[in-house]
């Protein structure tokens, strides 16, 4: 290769993630990585086409954003609706919503760990790509695949028991929920819990084996300081449905605490780039570089003081060792581990809620008209903190919709992760599939959901370049 020859390596499509994307890696004349980018190449536009509709419809519409985490949108949207109604949501309804959110945490995390990242973690980053996929995992480790699928099915079945369907339920509504859990269903799910705990024991062992196996290269999987954002409850414990927002830095120091959703959104600026449909939010007071933050399982475990359930707390203590004394765990590879801790926590919470008598209470829906013109709903989706921000007229017709999605908030960190991985594993004279797969895995660690995260129409800056075969620029069009 000529010394002045620049080269572009493209990984397209990125597989085993939710949505459509590609990665480009620019190599300089010496064959070293100059830049690496994660391009999100799909576009949805919910923020635009929901305008003019009624906020009462939004849980049902926005649940359609995603087939993996419809519950997150359902809950954030219902909570934004609660705020517009301005009345108190009945306590049993809140408990039922929490139950569905934990069920979704179980099913989504199980999908990510066992089926999307499992092939890399169990079969190896360098395994034959023909085998390194879900079918290969089922063939080579049928018992692990089966346990993972059953764990996911447990979560899905619980969502279905509450909302009539596991994908796109329209069960949670502004003011509460539509139906409660049947008495006979409680026992059915409680009986399955021992098997699910045992699956988790296996998964945690596999995870720790993987950490040993990849010990020599682990540092390249997105190990860098950043801020972490997540919900915590009033005691500072792990929270997925309500509570307040907390921001900590990579040394474990609290930067902001006790933030409401409004307060947090005031502190975040959403940056944009010409080469991706995904926005680039950052904590504005520190700027785009230092204000980069991560959300999701890793962030939630980093911001909380404790988990609040015995098994998860025991595992959380082990997890914290990987960060060092008093510090946060900064390596994105540990997202996988954090996911397992969260499944464990969710199972324990599900057990608690199912044993709770409050579920038989029939007052589960408050009714009111429009009492506030702005409503913000926040909840923790499997991939991180999710915001639905609506502005309505006095009749409840939407005038403005802003969805701030977890994957978007991880965008800067995902780009940094693949750059770090590419820098470590890729060079011009050595390009093999296993090395490229490591870069791809850096994205999988975040378990991004691109279908969820690309919504705003009209303001997206675009940069089009028209070149002839020799590469000479013929035309250059910019928008935004």
């Amino acid at each position: 290769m000529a010394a002045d020859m620049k080269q572009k390596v493209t990984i397209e499509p990125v597989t085993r993630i939710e949505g459509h994307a590609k990665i480009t890696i620019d190599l300089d004349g010496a064959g070293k990585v100059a830049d690496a980018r994660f391009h999100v190449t799909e576009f949805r536009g919910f923020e635009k086409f929901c305008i003019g509709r009624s906020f009462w419809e939004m849980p049902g519409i926005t649940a359609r954003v995603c087939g993996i985490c419809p519950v997150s949108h359902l809950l954030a949207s219902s909570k934004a609706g609660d705020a517009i109604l301005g009345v108190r949501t009945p306590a049993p309804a809140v408990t039922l919503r929490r139950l569905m959110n934990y069920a979704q945490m179980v099913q989504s995390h199980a999908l990510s760990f066992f089926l999307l990242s499992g092939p890399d973690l169990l079969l190896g980053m360098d395994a034959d790509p023909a085998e390194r996929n879900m079918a290969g995992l089922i063939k080579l480790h049928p018992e692990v695949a089966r346990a993972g699928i059953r764990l996911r099915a447990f979560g899905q079945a619980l969502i279905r028991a509450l909302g009539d369907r596991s994908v796109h339920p329209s069960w949670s509504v502004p003011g509460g929920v539509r139906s409660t859990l049947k008495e006979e269903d409680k026992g059915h799910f409680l009986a399955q819990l021992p098997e699910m705990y045992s699956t988790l024991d296996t998964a945690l062992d596999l995870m720790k084996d993987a950490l040993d196996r990849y010990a020599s290269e682990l540092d390249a999987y997105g190990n860098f300081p950043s801020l972490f954002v997540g919900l915590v409850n009033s005691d500072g414990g792990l929270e997925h449905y309500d509570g307040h927002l907390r921001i900590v830095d990579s040394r474990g120091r609290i930067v902001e605490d006790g933030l409401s959703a409004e307060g947090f959104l005031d502190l975040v600026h959403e940056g944009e780039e010409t080469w991706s449909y995904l926005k680039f939010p950052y904590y504005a007071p520190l700027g785009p570089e230092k204000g980069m933050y991560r959300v999701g399982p890793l962030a939630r475990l980093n911001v909380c003081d404790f988990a609040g359930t015995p098994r998860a707390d025991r595992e959380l203590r082990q997890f914290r060792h990987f960060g060092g004394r008093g510090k946060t765990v900064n390596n994105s590879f540990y997202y996988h581990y954090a996911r397992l801790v969260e499944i464990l926590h969710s199972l324990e919470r599900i057990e608690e809620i199912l044993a709770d008598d409050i579920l038989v209470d029939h007052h589960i829906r408050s009714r009111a008209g429009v009492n506030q013109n702005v409503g913000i709903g926040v909840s923790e989706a499997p991939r991180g903190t999710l915001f639905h921000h609506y502005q309505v007229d006095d009749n409840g017709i939407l005038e403005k919709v802003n969805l701030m999605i977890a994957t978007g908030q991880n965008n800067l960190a995902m780009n940094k992760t693949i750059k770090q991985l590419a820098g470590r594993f890729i060079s011009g004279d050595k390009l093999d599939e296993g090395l490229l797969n490591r870069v791809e895995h850096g994205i999988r660690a975040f378990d991004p959901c691109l279908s969820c995260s690309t919504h705003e129409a009209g303001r997206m800056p675009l940069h089009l370049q028209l070149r002839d075969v020799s590469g000479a620029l013929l035309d250059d069009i910019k928008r935004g």
Partner: protein
Amino acid sequence: MSVITLTINGELVSARSGQNLLEAIRDQGIKLPTLCYLDGLSTRGGCRLCLVDISGYPRLQTACTTTATEGMVVVTHNEKINRYRKMILELTFAERNHTCAVCVSNEHCELQTMAAELGMDHVRYDYLNPQLGIDISHEKYGVDHNRCILCLRCVRVCDEVEGAHTLDVRHRGINSRVITDLNRLWGESESCTECGKCVEVCPTGALFDKGMSVGEMKKKTNFLRRILDGREKNQWNR
């Protein structure tokens, strides 16, 4: 009451003199699809789904607006009629924005059920995707023009049964819109009695109770017969 005799699908059958053909056909247990027809309201022939072939007529006729007569020879289903019905239904879907997945009437919608019954598995025409709004200014009810098929059951029940005549139609043909009063917001209507009959007779999710979520709107039209029987047979004065 005199009885007449006519032939339906090759069978000699009897009907009441002056009975409309749709009822005469249905009395024989034959399923004839309709969307605009509703027992108790005046007939309109708007949805065109009850088209039948009557010997001696150059074109297909709507059964609901035709009176059954002595010696009539009628065919209710054949390849051509079935094809026309499917085509009409596809055009109805193409005309506005029927997004079942997020509709309040999903799984309880006459239009959706009809599509399934007639085996409509896709729409061959270009969707018009009109930009239509919703009006939820009324305290109890809402209207979404995207889902309206202009069957005008609401307009008829409001006028003929409730006697309020709050609802009517503006513009013509494909531009027709159901309006309240003289095109005011529903919430500002002075004539609306808030009885909700229009909502109950609407075959789709175009009219709905406010605050309903996906698939939650279940309508019942049997109140209509009860009210009319009571009125016509003076049951309330006994």
